[in-house]
């Protein structure tokens, strides 16, 4: 892409001096883009029956993308590489999350491979769009100004809209796509309006400038109101992305209708993308106005946890149940935001908490969805009831699902526990009465959540096999790999949380 920039520079007046670009820092994006193009090419040349090649190209591309991330991480010093006037920054925060996005993308690719193949959907385009979306996320992790954030957001969303409808002949899939699309666009409209207000007040799109302008003891009164409204609208835009109540309503329908791997992708990757944007905006841009977003996130968190859990109680479809569960989980991730404003230290431990939670959440949710895919291969059903007696004919899957479920519920010694403990820690670190109240609400919610998580376990272990069909479940190799990755993360982190905790601590936002 630099070529284009150079060309552009050449044609322009001498006055224009091309921006300095750190290609090492951009390496992940470049590798990924290259992969995207390769996939497109491959899709064109490879015959219909050899599409798995495309899948492999995509997977290897993703793995290849990890390399520059690692090298960046290892290149010494406090690896903060700021470009184009600080609108694009590659620091530990960015690296941790890029790594997460890439790995998640890889796991999703594994989950999807057989699914897409057997469902004879467009395979090449599928991976192409998947990678585009991941590119958007990777960019999001480094974006530090409104425009980049907006573009990154759309880049990670639009392929999502399309993928949600990938089962073209399935009405539910269409419906999922439409709902996701419409609400997504509207949310972006609201967000854009908010951005325009912020831009209007600060005269800059750069988050650091915005932060400075907002913190500056500027003209009081009306402008503060504008800022408030701007912040609110922007946050609403992303609250939609992370499916926070009351902006969650698309999630269950879309998750249920979309192809399961896509659901997994949306519920983990694009949700994380939204959170990443929120981190950047809140901790860099709007930090001075915690009086606005503090209570806002407080309300969102409480609503999200409670509503998500309560509705999840009533679900009979596993995917829908997981949808509401992931809403509730988003609630726990929002909790630290609410208390981040009380003190710099609180902000730090809040950020750590959220990031640790995201890392853990990715692992356990993807795992759960992998199981759903695997089981559906046999039962062809998404009903929780269809899991009856799974332990008898597929003990492996049952045990894994149990692990994921109870990890989501936060039962020691699984990774989920630590995610929650870090959230509680952030809350108590803030120490204010409201914070503690929030913590108690979260605690109570985590108990309510146990109802439905354990109900799945109950089905698998304690109820007889429906219509006594004990034919074993054939799990394809890629899926096994996906399960292997996820479960080992869940268990390993459960035993030695320090690993993720350290990542969460490294990922500071400056």
């Amino acid at each position, binding site marked *: *892409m630099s070529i*284009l*920039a150079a060309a*552009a*520079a050449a044609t*322009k*007046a001498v*006055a*224009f001096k*091309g*921006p300095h*670009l750190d290609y090492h820092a*951009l390496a992940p*994006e470049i590798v990924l*883009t290259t992969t*995207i193009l390769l996939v*497109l090419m491959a899709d064109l040349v490879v015959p219909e029956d050899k599409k798995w090649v495309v899948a492999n190209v995509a997977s290897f591309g993703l793995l290849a993308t990890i390399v520059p991330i690692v090298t960046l991480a290892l290149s010494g010093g406090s690896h903060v590489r700021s*470009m*184009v*006037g600080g*609108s*694009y920054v590659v620091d530990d925060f960015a690296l941790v999350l890029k790594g997460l996005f890439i790995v998640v993308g890889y796991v999703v690719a594994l989950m999807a491979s057989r699914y897409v193949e057997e469902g004879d959907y*467009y395979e090449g*385009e599928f991976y*192409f*769009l998947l990678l*585009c*979306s991941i*590119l*958007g996320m990777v*960019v999001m992790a480094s*974006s530090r*100004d409104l*425009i*980049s954030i*907006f*573009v*990154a957001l*759309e*880049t990670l969303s*639009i*392929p999502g*809209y*399309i*993928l949600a*409808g990938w089962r*073209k002949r399935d009405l539910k899939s269409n419906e999922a*796509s439409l709902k996701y699309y419409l609400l997504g666009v509207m949310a972006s409209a609201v967000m854009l309006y908010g951005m325009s207000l912020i831009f209007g*007040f600060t005269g800059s799109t750069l988050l650091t400038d915005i932060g400075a302008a907002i913190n500056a003891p500027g003209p009081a*009164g*009306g*402008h503060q*109101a*504008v800022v408030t*409204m701007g912040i609110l609208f922007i946050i609403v835009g992303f609250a939609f992305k992370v499916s926070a109540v009351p902006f969650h309503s698309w999630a269950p329908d879309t998750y249920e209708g979309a192809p399961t791997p896509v659901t997994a992708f949306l519920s983990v990757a694009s949700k994380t993308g939204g959170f990443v944007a929120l981190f950047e905006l809140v901790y860099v841009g709007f930090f001075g106005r915690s009086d606005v977003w503090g209570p806002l996130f407080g309300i969102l968190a409480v609503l999200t946890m409670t509503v998500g859990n309560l509705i999840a109680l009533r679900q009979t479809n596993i995917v829908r149940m997981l949808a509401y569960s992931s809403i509730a989980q988003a609630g726990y991730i929002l909790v630290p935001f609410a208390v981040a404003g009380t003190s710099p230290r609180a902000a730090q431990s809040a950020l750590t908490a959220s990031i640790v939670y995201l890392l853990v959440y990715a692992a356990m949710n993807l795992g759960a969805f992998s199981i759903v895919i695997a089981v559906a291969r046999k039962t062809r059903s998404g009903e929780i009831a269809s899991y009856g007696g799974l332990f008898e004919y597929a003990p492996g899957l049952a045990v894994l699902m149990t692990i994921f479920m109870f990890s989501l519920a936060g039962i020691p010694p699984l990774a989920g526990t630590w995610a929650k403990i870090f959230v509680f820690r952030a809350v108590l670190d803030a120490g204010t009465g409201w914070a503690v109240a929030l913590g108690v609400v979260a605690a109570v919610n985590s108990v309510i959540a146990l109802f439905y998580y354990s109900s799945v376990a109950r089905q698998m272990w304690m109820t007889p096999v429906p219509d006594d069909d004990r034919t074993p479940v054939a799990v394809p190799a890629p899926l096994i790999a996906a399960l292997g990755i996820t479960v080992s993360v869940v268990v390993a982190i459960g035993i030695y949380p320090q690993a993720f905790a350290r990542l969460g601590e490294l990922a500071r936002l400056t």
Partner: protein
Amino acid sequence: MVAQNIAFGLLAAAMVAAGFRLVTTKNVVRAALFLAIVLGGVAGIFTLLGAEFVAWVQVLVYIGAIVVLLLFGVMLTRAPIGKEGDLDNDQRWTAALVALFVLGALAAVLADAWGTQEIKFQGVQRTAAVSDSIFGTYVVPFEVASVLLLAALVGAVALARRD
């Protein structure tokens, strides 16, 4: 200045009227045309604000591309060209309420914020300046946007394609 204000007045009136018809008309094709009017108005506003490049892009991309695209959409979904029964759903009043509420909130805040501040007019922005900023500060999003358009294209084709 006066001329500009008159121009603004006319444009604004036209746009609001067209916009209103757009969301109320019983005829889909007409709606598209009203949309064209609004968009044209927006282009006018841009010129008023000295953003000529953006204004032209607006004309080309929106009126030239998007409106046409939408018209195709109208055709392809075989919407009757003439009057059509009811294009609204049953939550019209809720919609109106919400819309007015939003308008009220926005108006109140904006009025409160920028009261009667003037835009100090510094003449037309050189297009070069725009391109400098695009290829300077915003080069990364620009490149990403290209990928995005590609993705949208491929995706749209994949979805819409009859197979």
